[in-house]
Each structure stands twice: as structure tokens, then as C-alpha cells.
């Protein structure tokens, strides 16, 4: 492996890691607020990619402009998921049941997409998707740079929303103690609903960048969700900062494995990370809250 190849793998890993961080942050947020593991997050990313595909191919809307339509649509889907299903699960076994419910959601999304688009691979295209810029010795695809910039901006926005607004304070309060939050006048149900909506809405942005960087079909959600789960477990469930760090770390590692060994095995980095973390610290990286819930 050449030194330049290694550096390029690291840069690619950091840039794609930003987008994965955004998608994983959504997953982590949903878990943190509701103790729900959204297995459908991967399928929702793919759904977001298809929505962008429809808008750009059939209506000629630019990929980034199209997000103004797809992100609210995915937000609505998240609200529906919370209001229609999650709220109705019993508190005691909600986490286990939510895995089944969201798995069913993932299957339905996959079925609908297969029915409409068949299982052929698609790719998003735009002028900036196929171009790359020459910096020092490296050719960086423009979409990677734009995707990373957008992910960084959105993650920054999420941070401000959580730590600098009244809504964010209410959200963090209901995350810490539902009953107490209720008592001091926070509308916990509405806060949770919006949080799940935000957690799902980020998949529209993640899906657009994902669809512009790799070919996808309705089946791609499975590969995605296993990566996202690995990121979230490594970063500590419910922790958005942890998700960001571990997303970048895992993608850099995966890209190095792909360059040094074979792209085929790079995906194993994610699974190896899950197993390593869990056999060393079964609860450690999950944060105190999750441990207490068990």
C-alpha cells in the first residue's frame, strides 16, 4: 500500500464518516429519547435516496434543493412512527417490541420500494456528483466534500437545538426523567414525537449523499443498519457526540482495511467493533442510563 493511498483512504473515511455520523446521530437520538432501537433507520436512508432519485430524475429538482421536500416528508414519517406505533407499546417491554415494529417498518419500506422500482441498482447523478477537485496530490469527489459540509452543518444545528433552545432543554429533561419533566410542564409526548421526527428526517439528507456516492437498491438498508448499529453501540447509545466520533473512526478504519486488504472485508470492521466492545465492556460504552434501565 502506498503512503498516498493510505492518506487518501483516511481522508475518504473522514468525509464519508461525517455523513454516517449524521445518520447514526438520528438513530442515537431516537434511542436516547424513547429507548427505541429503530431498525428501519437503514431502510429509511434508502427511502430518502429513492425520494431524491424521483425528484431529480422525474422533476429535475437539484439534489440539495430536493432535501427541502424530502426532509419534511421523512420528518412526517418519523412522527407517524412515533404517534402511530411507539406510543402504543407498553413501557416495560418497549425496547424489544420497538425492534420488531421497526423491523416490520423496514420490511414494508423494502417491499414498497421493490414494487415500485424493482431491485435494480440506481444511482443519483448531478454535475457535482461525478466531478472531483484536485487538492495537493489527491482527487476528492465534490459530493464527498459537499456531503461532509452539510453533515457538519446539520450536526452543529442539532447541537444548538439541544443545548441552546427551550425545546432542547425540555428534550433533555424528558430524556432524564419522564415523570419529573411531566410535572414541570413539559409536553413529553410532543417532545418525543418531534425528536423521533428529527431523528428520521436526517435520513433524508444522509440518504441523498449515500445515493450519490454508491449504487443502491431496496435491499441496501440491511447493510446500512448493521453499520449504523455498530457505530451507535461503539459510541454509546443515546450519545450523539459518541456517534460522531465512532462513525469517523470506523469509516477510516474500514477504508484502510479496504485499501490494505480488500473492500470485501472492510464491512467486517463494523461487526468486529461490535463484538470487541461488547465482550470487553458489555455495558460500559452504553452509558449509565441504559445500564440502569436494564
Amino acid at each position, binding site marked *: 500500500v502506498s503512503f498516498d493511498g493510505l492518506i487518501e483512504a483516511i481522508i475518504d473515511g473522514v468525509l464519508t464518516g461525517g455523513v454516517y455520523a449524521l445518520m447514526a446521530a438520528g438513530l442515537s437520538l431516537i434511542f436516547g429519547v424513547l429507548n427505541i432501537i429503530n431498525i428501519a433507520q437503514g431502510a429509511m436512508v434508502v427511502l430518502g435516496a429513492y425520494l431524491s432519485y424521483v425528484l431529480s430524475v422525474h422533476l429535475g429538482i437539484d439534489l440539495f434543493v430536493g432535501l427541502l421536500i424530502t426532509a419534511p416528508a421523512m420528518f412526517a414519517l418519523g412522527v407517524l412512527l412515533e404517534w402511530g406505533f411507539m406510543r402504543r407499546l407498553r413501557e416495560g417491554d418497549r425496547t424489544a417490541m420497538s425492534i420488531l415494529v421497526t423491523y416490520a417498518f423496514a420490511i414494508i419500506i423494502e417491499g414498497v420500494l421493490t414494487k*415500485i422500482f424493482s431491485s435494480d441498482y440506481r444511482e443519483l447523478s448531478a454535475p457535482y456528483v461525478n466531478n472531483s477537485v484536485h487538492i495537493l496530490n489527491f482527487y476528492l469527489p465534490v459530493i464527498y466534500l459537499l456531503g461532509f459540509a452539510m453533515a457538519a452543518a446539520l450536526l452543529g444545528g442539532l447541537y444548538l437545538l439541544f443545548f441552546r433552545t427551550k425545546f432542547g432543554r425540555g428534550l433533555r429533561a424528558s430524556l432524564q426523567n419522564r415523570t419529573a419533566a411531566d410535572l414541570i410542564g413539559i409536553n413529553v409526548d410532543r417532545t418525543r414525537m418531534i425528536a423521533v421526527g428529527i431523528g428520521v428526517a436526517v435520513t433524508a439528507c444522509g440518504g441523498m449523499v449515500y445515493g450519490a456516492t454508491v449504487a443502491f437498491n431496496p435491499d441496501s438498508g440491511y447493510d446500512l443498519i448493521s453499520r449504523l*448499529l455498530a457505530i451507535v453501540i461503539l459510541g454509546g447509545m443515546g450519545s450523539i457526540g459518541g456517534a460522531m466520533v465512532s462513525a469517523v473512526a470506523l469509516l477510516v478504519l474500514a477504508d484502510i482495511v479496504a485499501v490494505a486488504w480488500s473492500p470485501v472485508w472492510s464491512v467486517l470492521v463494523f461487526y468486529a467493533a461490535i463484538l470487541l466492545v*461488547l465482550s470487553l465492556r458489555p455495558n460500559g460504552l452504553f452509558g449509565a442510563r441504559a445500564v440502569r434501565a436494564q
Partner: protein
Amino acid sequence: VSASVAADEGAAAAPPGEALAGGAGRRIGASLVAAIALALAILFGLVENGNQGNMSIAVFALIFMASVSAWNIFSGYSGYLALGHAVFFGTGAYTIALIGTDWHVPAGWAVMALLPVCGVTAGLVAIPVGLVALRTRRHTFVVVTIGVFFIFQTLATNLAFTGGTTGVQVPFVSWSFSVFNQRFYYVALALVVATVALSWSVRRSRFGLQLMAIRDDEERARGMGVRTARVKLAAFVLSAIPVGIAGGLWAYFLGSVYPQSAFDPLFDIALALMGFFGGIGTIAGPLLGALVLESLQQYFTQKFSANGLYLIVYGSLFLVVILLMPRGIVPSAAQWIRSWRTQRAGGASKPTAGADVAQVTS
């Protein structure tokens, strides 16, 4: 006849709710056994009918009845939701394909003799998987089983000895078309009977009680002296073995093994769906769930073969089951019948009760 009347009256004298609940429970159990016998008879009729399409539906249904019953031994009794049993199914499938080709086993009944080996390999795989996964609790455990599943799928796709995406061919059986499905049907039926016997004996044993204590309150069970880690691992391995055998049988029935079909995420979710549909933790529930859902799915696939449609139906059905009957058909029905009986007994005055007895005796 008069003795039975006396017994009935004796039961009526006992605290009404308790006696009725016990009696109703026994009767529900009996009627369930009858329902399953009836269902098996229908399946048998399909097989004897000679329609090859129906026969293969019956074989698939039986393979899933065995798999869900086995899954239930761990997930149903211990309350730990495992979503990675396709690992054992695929291990069994690859075992029979690889051993069958490498050992040059003559096709026919000789390959069937390899089925126990599939159970052994699945059990051996389950030990390390269980050791890692069972270090975690509840929902983390679910995520880990999903992760382990994807590791195995990736390995099966990319390792050299599994044949990669082209898969492996299982020795071809030269049985004539007319007896092919029938023979597989009987082997699958034997597997179902054996698995149900295993599930039943676990449920009635001290081991089963320990599992159910873990399901109810794991810390308490440990406080009471249950060696939870050991018990959970034993149940996990025990539940993997029949699933491995089912995978081997399935591979032999289809004739070839591919990573995407042997390690199928839909298999993972199918076991949970069928289990929840019928009622997890019961003996009859998994059988009923697998029988209804797998037969339906096979029928739809044969009839329409529209690939996306059955995913939609499957997912929607799952949502409905979880939201409306989170405990499954069997427990919900049992509760419904019980409350109906209590209501009727509570509302009834003396004379009608006497009329009931008269009806019983006549």
C-alpha cells in the same frame, strides 16, 4: 355418569374463579392439541392429495414449525429476543452441502443421515455466539444477535470454502418425482415431533422453570440461586440444534445453498413473527404461527410471485399482530375463553347451573 356430576358439583363448590380457570385451561389445552392434530391432518391430506405444489408448501410449513418451536425454547421461555437464528439455519444448510459434497455421500437417505451432524455444527456455533451475545442484556442482546447474523452472512459470501455468491450444490436425490416431496414431508414431520417433545420436556422441567424465572425477573432468579449465565447458554445452544437440522433439511430439499437464502434476515424476523403471532412461551403457539404464516407465504409466492408484495403483506401483518395481540393468538384466545366462561358463570343463577349439569350428564 353420576360420579361425573358429583365431580362437577364439587368443582362448583370450590372457589368459582379458580376452579373454572383450571378447568378452562385444561380444556383449552386439549382443544389446542386437537386443532394442531387437525391442522397436521389437513397438511397430510395435502401431501396425500398428490399435488406437488401443496406438498412443498407442507414441507416448508413443517420446517418452520420445527424452527419456531426451537427458537421458542430459548426466546419464548427466557424472554430474550434472539434475532439471529438464521445463523444456525444457514450453518445447518452449509454443513449438509459441504459435507455431502466433500465426503461424496451417495444421495438419498444417506444424506438424511447427515442431519444430526447439522444439529451438532449449529450447536457448536451457538456456543461462542452465545458466550459473547449473552454477556449483554435484553435489547443490547437483540442488537448483538443481529450483528452476529450479518457477520455470518458476510463470511458465507466471501470465504473461499463456502463457494461465495455462487453457493454450493447439495448432492442431488434421484428419488422419483412422485415420492420426493412425500419423503421430505415425513422427515420434517419427525423433526417437528422431536422438537415439540424437547420443548415440552424443557417447559415441564426444573431447567424450564429456571428459564421462566429469568424471563420474569433475572436479578431475582439469580438471587434465588439460578445460575443464569449457564442456564441461558444451555437454552441458547439447545434451541440452535433443531434449527440447524431444519436448515440442513431445507438445503437438501431445495438442492442448493446460497449465502443470501441460507443466511436470510427475513428468516430471523420470520421466527419472531410466527412466534409472536401464535404466542411465545407456549407449546402450541409457535406451531400454529408457523403453520398459518409459512403456508400463506408459500401459497402467495406460488400464486403471485410478486417480489415486493409479499414483503408488504408480511410487514403489515406483523405490525397488526404486535399492536393488537402482543401476546399472540394462543394466549389471547385462552384469556378470551376464560373471561367468557367466568362471565357466563358469574351471570348464571342456580337453575341454569343445574341445567348445565343436566346437559353434561345426558
